[in-house]
């Protein structure tokens, strides 16, 4: 455990120093941003659609007991934008993009392609890790914005069509409760989570043990560690920003 913490700190330090000192391969950064953004988008949007509709259902059934159906929009937009969307998007990105990074790098590691890069005096951090970190840093805030809109949109549809409440009232309370600050914090969270997911997943891939089992285990460790770290960091950011 402590070995992993130290190893991870060294990994982050190396990545940061390479990003600072070496020229950044801009083409690869955009390639990764495109890759992460486009490949993860359908899955993320589908998931947030279900999260949004579920928030509306649960909020409705909980508020009905108190006679506060009119607050549903506020509940969905606050719970959705402040906490659910950033956290769920991070978890799903860890599951989709994080596992992909980890398994790609793990396969490169066990096939000694990373050593081959070093032999050719191409720095693997500059070439493999930095583009992934910067790419996700570009892609994830944009994806989070789209997910927030999807979440509120599906919650609105469920409120109107399934629950039979007033749609305009929902939108009024939903957007009335949101402030610009909430959106900025959600974007900030997305950027932090993206950076954490990419660093953790690349680290797990780099440290992969040989064989098919090693690749599987590295991928597994990547998604679990990033999900847990994102949940904890989510609390810390909320405590810092909202308390």
């Amino acid at each position, binding site marked *: 455990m402590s070995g992993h913490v130290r190893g991870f700190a060294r990994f982050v330090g190396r990545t940061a120093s390479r990003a600072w000192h070496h020229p950044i391969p801009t083409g690869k950064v955009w390639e990764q941003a495109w890759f992460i953004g486009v490949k993860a988008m359908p899955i993320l949007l589908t998931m947030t659609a279900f999260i949004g509709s579920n928030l509306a259902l*649960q909020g409705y059934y909980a508020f009905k007991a108190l006679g506060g159906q009119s607050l549903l929009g506020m509940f969905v937009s606050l719970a959705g934008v402040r906490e659910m969307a950033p956290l769920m998007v991070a*978890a799903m990105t860890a*599951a989709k993009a994080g596992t992909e990074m980890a398994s790609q790098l793990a*396969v490169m590691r066990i096939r000694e392609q990373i050593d081959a890069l070093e032999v050719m005096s191409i720095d693997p951090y500059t070439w493999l890790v930095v583009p992934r970190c910067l790419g996700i840093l570009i892609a994830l805030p944009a994806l989070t914005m789209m997910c927030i809109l999807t979440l509120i949109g599906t919650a609105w549809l469920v409120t109107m069509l399934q629950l039979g409440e007033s749609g305009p009232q929902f939108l009024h309370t939903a957007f009335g409760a949101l402030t610009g600050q909430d959106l900025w914090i959600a974007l900030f969270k997305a950027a932090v989570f993206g950076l954490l997911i990419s660093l953790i997943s690349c680290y797990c891939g780099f440290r992969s043990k040989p064989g098919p089992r090693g*690749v599987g285990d590295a*991928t597994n460790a990547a*998604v679990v560690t990033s999900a847990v770290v994102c*949940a904890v960091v989510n609390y810390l950011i909320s405590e810092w920003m909202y308390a």
Partner: protein
Amino acid sequence: MTRLASMSPGLPRATRFCGELGQRVVTGTMYPALIADHMWTLASRSALPVLATTLPTGMVVALQGLNVFDLFGAQRLLSSLISVAVFRELSPVLSSMLVAAQGGASFAAELGSMRIQEEIDATEVMAIDSLRLHVLPRVIAAVITTPLMHLLGTGAGIAGGWVVAVLMRGEPSGVYWANLWALTQPLDLWGGVLKTAVFGLIIGLTATYRGYFATGGAPGVGVAVNETVVQSVLGFVAANYVLTSLMYGSAP
């Protein structure tokens, strides 16, 4: 009838896979020792991640809930809100997500590397039913363990809420515990267990299917793990919506 292993990927193969597993549930032995073994692996590997995710999330709910309830002076409702939010929604989804990411992924990695290293073929050569030996115990273990992880996550979420409300914001502890179950119903308890058992089934089936049919060497195992996590999470989030509509939509 063509053999399952020689079928091409697609819906017929998936249906056949589930059908053959269902047939094995009702006929023949179940290998309880293997089920217990996988349950232990799943529980011991997922418990810590589940705790480490639901605890901070319960803390976040308390934090945001207090922000809103302070406006109305309704802080006493906080623990009721936390227990409803954690019991109905957060713990089932987050715990199952972690079970999928940790347990489901490791099932896929195990079965995938067994397939790649031809261990599954070796079992078949020895005339041992690989579905019954390798797949079924894992699926059943997932169905039983996921609800347990959900209950663990619920406890952690409520404890996390208590930490923020009582220890950090100085709300009275007695009020927190007294109002904890004010809005929850028995439906929330067994409904959550039922929901997570279905999620566990989705996770178990996805993981074993992806692992059992992994192809393409070591990268194939990575792909299997990746697809397991993504598809099972999508699957149970969708199932969550349907189940919530059914359970709470029909309740008064």
